[in-house]
């Protein structure tokens, strides 16, 4: 009896270990890329280059955090690009007309409001999130075009760009903000509200039966995504030094790609903030590597597309292989 229990424990521990291993496909790919690029290109592994990767992916990484939370709950937000476009245009206008602090606060509020509108449309009106955010995304970017008129808006004061690109220990403030957002999103995903998103994405009916406030939790996820898009647009305003309404067109898909490459399920219920961070890092490293390897910029997009597919395919195979093992080992621990 005692030995049987001990044996069952061993099986159980093995199942848990396998469960961890099955998530390691993409981190493994990331390390492979870093090692390869490190050996083939002298500049890749330098601190300056690594910081530049980090600061170039910072805005989209921030957007990807919100997107990951939404994807886990089984929803999408395609309007983050529109929020970005509206953010940079309206943000630069407000900064030019009042001051930097008011502009930044306005952008945060704008993000919250846009997120709340999406959340309202999805949870209260009941529109599918893909459709609702497609619509609102068009509206935000349309408004951005109207506000901008024919010419891009240029920031008169340099306060915001100086602050965002200020690098106290070689690391820019924009990267620090991104790290703060990642940490916040990580902790959010571990709270009761965060776990509720997993439950909603896995089995909405089960979540409802268990008294999870499905609508409130989904609404909050949209608000958070909007907020993060607002924060990302603050950084982008600073990077550009003004506002152009074309900003953000690639945000939604790139954020979804980052999350999905990392292993967040497009159908909801599976994935983690950590996975989205790894996915984002992979995309950033590949983009940077392609530049360093002097690959034609038009070809870079093609390569990026291939990488996304390869990463997801590896991840799927890994999960299948180890998933079967987890189940069989798990069942073995149940046998008496």
């Amino acid at each position, binding site marked *: 009896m005692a030995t049987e229990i001990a044996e*069952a424990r061993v099986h*159980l521990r093995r*199942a*848990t270990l396998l469960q961890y291993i099955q998530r390691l496909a993409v981190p493994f790919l990331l390390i492979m890329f870093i090692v390869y690029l490190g050996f083939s290109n002298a500049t890749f592994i330098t601190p300056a280059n690594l910081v530049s990767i980090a600061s170039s992916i910072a805005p989209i990484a921030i957007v990807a955090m919100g997107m990951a939370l939404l994807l886990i709950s089984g929803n999408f937000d395609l309007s983050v690009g529109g929020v970005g476009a509206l953010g940079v245009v309206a943000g630069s206008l407000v900064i030019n007309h009042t001051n930097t602090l008011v502009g930044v606060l306005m952008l945060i509020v704008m993000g919250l409001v846009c997120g709340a509108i999406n959340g309202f449309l999805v949870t209260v009106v009941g529109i599918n999130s893909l459709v609702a955010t497609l619509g609102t995304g068009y509206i935000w970017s349309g408004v951005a075009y109207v506000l901008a008129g024919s010419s891009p808006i240029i920031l008169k004061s340099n306060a915001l760009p100086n602050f965002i690109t200020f690098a106290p220990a070689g690391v820019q403030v924009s990267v620090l903000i991104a790290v703060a957002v990642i940490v916040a999103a990580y*902790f*959010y995903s*571990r*709270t*009761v*509200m*965060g*776990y*509720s998103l997993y*439950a909603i994405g*896995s*089995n909405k*009916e*089960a*979540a*409802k*039966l*268990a*008294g*999870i*406030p499905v609508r409130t939790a989904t609404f909050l996820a949209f608000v958070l995504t909007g907020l993060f898009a607002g924060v990302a647009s603050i950084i982008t305003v600073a990077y550009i030094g003004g506002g152009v309404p074309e900003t953000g067109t690639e945000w939604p898909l790139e954020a979804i790609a980052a999350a999905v490459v990392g292993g967040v399920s497009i159908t909801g*219920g*599976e994935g983690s903030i950590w996975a989205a961070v790894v996915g984002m890092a992979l995309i950033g490293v590949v983009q940077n590597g392609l530049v360093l390897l002097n690959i034609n910029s038009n070809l870079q997009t093609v390569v990026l597309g291939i990488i996304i597919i390869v990463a997801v395919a590896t991840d799927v195979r890994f999960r299948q292989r180890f998933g079967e093992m*987890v*189940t*069989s*080992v*798990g*069942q*073995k*621990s*149940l*046998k*008496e």
Partner: protein
Amino acid sequence: MTMQESQWVESKFVGGMELLLKIVDMTKIYPPHLEALVDVNLVIHTGEIVALLGANGAGKSTLAKILTGAEMPTRGHIYWRGKEVHITSTRAATELGIAIVFQELNLLPDLTAAENVAIGLRNMHPFLLFSRKKAEALYNEMASLVPSPPKPDIKVKWMSVAERQKVAVIRALVHNPKLLIIDEGTSSWNLGERYEFQQVLQRLAKQKKLSIIYITHFIDDALRVTSRAVVLRDGRKVLETGPDSNYAYDDIVTALSGTEQRTNVEGFVTVAGKPRPNGKPVLKVENLMIGGVGPVSFTVNEGECVGFYGYPGCGAVEVLEAIAGLKPYKGSVIWRGEQLRGGVYKRLRKNVIFCTGDRGRQLITRWPVYLNVGLPRFFRNRPFVPVKHRMFEHIASYVIQKFRIKGYPRTNIGALSGGNQQKVVVGSGIEIGRPLLLLGDDITRGIDVIARSEIHQLLRQMLEDEVAVILWSTDPNEMVEVCDRVYIFAQGRVIIELPRDEITAERLEYVARTRSLKQGVLKNGDRDS
């Protein structure tokens, strides 16, 4: 001629019946060590019905999957009309003439009954326009073999579970099979429907010379319809009865569980538990109206288990869902002197909990046991604090011990057998807190007799002062076994209330059936919601 073939020739005609299928040393091992089937031998003759019995996880479904080409055996031989065959795909099985009605019905919810039946057929060309007329004609032809079949033009998603199962049976018959495997096909039918269906099976077996493997949890069904029974336990054949030998209920239960179990006169495992004296009423429901259901009024007393009996679509489930806060309603629901308001979230805080036998609706299968136990307890904490994994693990291991669940808190709940999953659902519900109002929606659906009687015992034992239970079921025996009082539902209303000493399966069935017939329920097909 190999040895096995010569054996087959010898046994080709046994008792005047032609041998259709012979399974020799069938073994299926899931790597690395899970033995689903070990050296199982079985023969099926033309036109006979054989019951395949076993607890959840005994290997019945694995055998069915091997015969239909969904799984390949690790080793073993299949002889079909004397020739060895390798069933490598579901298509190969169909071509041989083996059809199955699965426990998990793979019907397409957005298609109509006729479309579901016709969709995979050869004479429906995949690239030509789908002929609805042809499909419906075909459907109607096959549907005549099944009692009160659903109409051909109704979408499957609007059907009750029982109706879906009928469609699945009709779909299986369309291929003109020689061997039909029914895998729990009738587990959620009511007694009358099951009885009618079994008569159909017997007619098919006799007239069309169809052989049937009837995989079921209902031992009395097996005793009634089949000529032989085969009992599996842990992947091994532990009992096989001959066509002429009489076998008793107790023998089968013993073979199923591997231990002696006492049974009562009706042949059901008795439940230890004293009938409780009537306490004071704790739940008062008055003029409850939900959509087309109601008005319904009833009371539940302290420490009492009240049964709701009726056919699917009688409205009892809607009443339970309304009390749980899942459906909007008009009327008053007073629980311990307090009007219940709001959604599930608010009612769960008052320990009003809804448990359903539809496990896919209640469990998150990719989560471990402890998180599934924790899910209804999430919002007992504040929303923005980390999930208390430790606490949920403690609760889960308590539930596992108390309800003797085979599993560990960190085991993925999908790896547990159906009966154990159901015990997690019910156990977790029972332990949510006191005072407790447990609303059970067919909580023993599709699980084996042993798990079922264990759940019944748990329910009886927990009926203390601070607990009230309402149980809905289409199974009259469940009412007999656990309920102190029964309300019979038909057409969205309570038609009669039966005290403990008047609850018998015959009475329940008779009342529900006559009342439903009178009001035309059965004619239109009995529809959920």
